């Protein structure tokens, strides 16, 4: 009994890591740029497809795909911010949302156009395939890998934001963009940088999912919806909230499938509704004017 609980919890945790990578970028971008990027799920999807493409094209090396996919998506992120988002910062928030939404439509079809509407998959790299016995059950090595990467990214993000000069600038611009500018921070360039970084995080999540999840044109939409649940629960703009929210959703899914299969889907929404009633700005969110 306890064994099942712990095991299932670990399964939930490893699934939560993909979500965390996407929600982290989404929340970071919102925290600094004040723009909600609907296309963030599409960047995750692009990350997966590009990693898949590079793995296939370059002789099946998973690590090359994992490296190159997110880098290409990061440059897509640069183009998005530099050529498009920049033009709508001063407009009503509805048009910022619509702009990113337009890219959801574009990327979705673009992916179908290039790679076709069918499911794709690649195999797990040999080093990471197989399973270890955990409480008498086989736990995939790849899940351990994901847990490690997710935790490392969390740690790295924390170090980056709290311990590096760039992180100081990001935190400063997030809380007071105007004052940062008056002290010499080139805010537009910083915005571009944050967007690129957020895009890279999402794409990393996508690339990591390639060996275990099937790749399909619908993957962007399902992850963005879940990421929305995560940031509503955790508080939009808070990385701590994004992490805990992702873990919560991951666990809800893992245990839901086990004990309440009929309501598994509804659980996350019920969780979100409860948070919205008790703490409308999320667990770690701040009230906005």
């Amino acid at each position, binding site marked *: 009994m306890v064994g099942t609980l712990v095991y299932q919890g670990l399964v939930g945790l490893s699934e939560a890591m993909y979500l965390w990578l996407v929600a982290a970028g989404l929340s970071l971008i919102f925290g600094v740029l004040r723009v909600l990027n*609907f296309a963030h799920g599409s960047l995750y999807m692009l990350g997966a497809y590009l990693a898949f493409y590079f793995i296939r094209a370059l002789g099946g090396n998973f690590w090359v795909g994992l490296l190159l996919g997110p880098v290409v998506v990061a440059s897509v992120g640069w183009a998005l911010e530099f050529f498009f988002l920049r033009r709508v910062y001063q407009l009503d928030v509805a048009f910022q*949302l619509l702009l990113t939404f*337009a890219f959801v*439509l574009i990327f979705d*079809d673009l992916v179908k*156009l290039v790679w076709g509407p069918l499911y794709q998959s690649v195999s797990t790299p040999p080093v990471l395939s197989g399973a270890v016995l955990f409480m008498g059950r086989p736990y995939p090595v790849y899940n351990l890998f994901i847990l490690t990467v997710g935790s490392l990214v969390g740690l790295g993000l924390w170090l980056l934001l709290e311990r590096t000069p760039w992180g100081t600038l990001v935190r400063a611009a997030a809380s007071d963009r105007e004052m940062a500018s008056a002290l010499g921070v080139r805010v537009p360039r910083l915005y571009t940088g944050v967007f690129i970084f957020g895009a890279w995080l999402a794409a990393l999540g996508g690339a990591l999912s390639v060996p275990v999840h099937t790749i399909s044109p619908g993957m962007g939409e399902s992850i963005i919806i879940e990421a929305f649940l995560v940031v509503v629960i955790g508080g939009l703009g808070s990385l701590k909230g994004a992490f805990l929210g992702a873990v919560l959703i991951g666990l809800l899914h893992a245990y839901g499938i086990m004990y309440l299969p009929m309501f598994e889907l509804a659980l996350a929404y019920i969780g979100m509704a409860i948070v919205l009633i008790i703490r409308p700005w999320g667990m770690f969110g701040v009230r906005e004017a």
Partner: protein
Amino acid sequence: MDASASGKLWLRVFVVGIVLVLLAVPQVAGRFWQYLTLNILLLSLFSLSFNLLFGMTGLLSFGHAAFYATGAYATALFLRTGMVPLLPSVIMGTVAAALLAALIGFFCVRHTHVYFAMLTLAFGMMVYAIVWKWTPVTGGDDGLVGIPRGSLSIPGLFTIQMGPLAHYYYFLTILALLGMYALYRISRSPFGLILNGMRENAGRVEFAGISARRYLWWTFTIAGLFAGLAGSLMAPLESTVAPASAHWAKSAEPVMASLIGGPFVFAGPIVGSLIYIGLKEVIVRFTQYWLLIFGAVLLILVLGFRGGVVGFLLRRVARANVPLSPAEE
């Protein structure tokens, strides 16, 4: 007679003309054109209900298909029992959508516009997931098929079978026009002006003695109701309802139609629906990737033509004072 009065007269003549044309379609055109006309009417009603939120109130919903689908599924379920006639089925489907909108709206209108957009998309996809998974009731992946159109009857007086498309054409057209007229009346009512006020400055409305949140909740519910009506009318027309009707791609349709036509003029979404369906008819003949094209169209609209076609025409041709966007300096 001054210019605005003559303008009003021409507008009335124009509207009556369109209604007459609509009524004449089954007499002069075949199934294809009837079907296309009905689709335009349905999307117009759907988009107008969306635009009650977006154009009038400034709230951008990405989950409006939830209510469209609820109306469609509920109506289909009633019709499939064979016990409930067409009109009561449509009414109950519409009411079901409104009830769901009241429930979801309760959570969505309490927040900033960013949260509103995010929450509507999430709740919309919740409905999609339910439809997909709740196979015993919704038919799951396959949806509900073989929905009868039933009949319109007053017991003892008359019964009209709705099986023939031409019959159903009139039923749908009349109800859709009534729905659009109701939305028009709302836009011209005191309530409608308050909504416009909320779009401009919700805080100030509060200081006029009006509870913004309660009014937004009502608006959300009404918008859901008319989206539900559109869905309810769609189900018997197609005789099938599929989960796609709840998908966000469906929610994107009224967004597109409103932006193409122009969200800040009442007729904008209607013109937009006409253009959207027309364009789609053409595009699908060349490529299945019509969302790609519409994404690009949306991009151009957002970057350069935020008043849509009608807004553009009014500004450039009639030189009228049409606002471009809810809060643009």
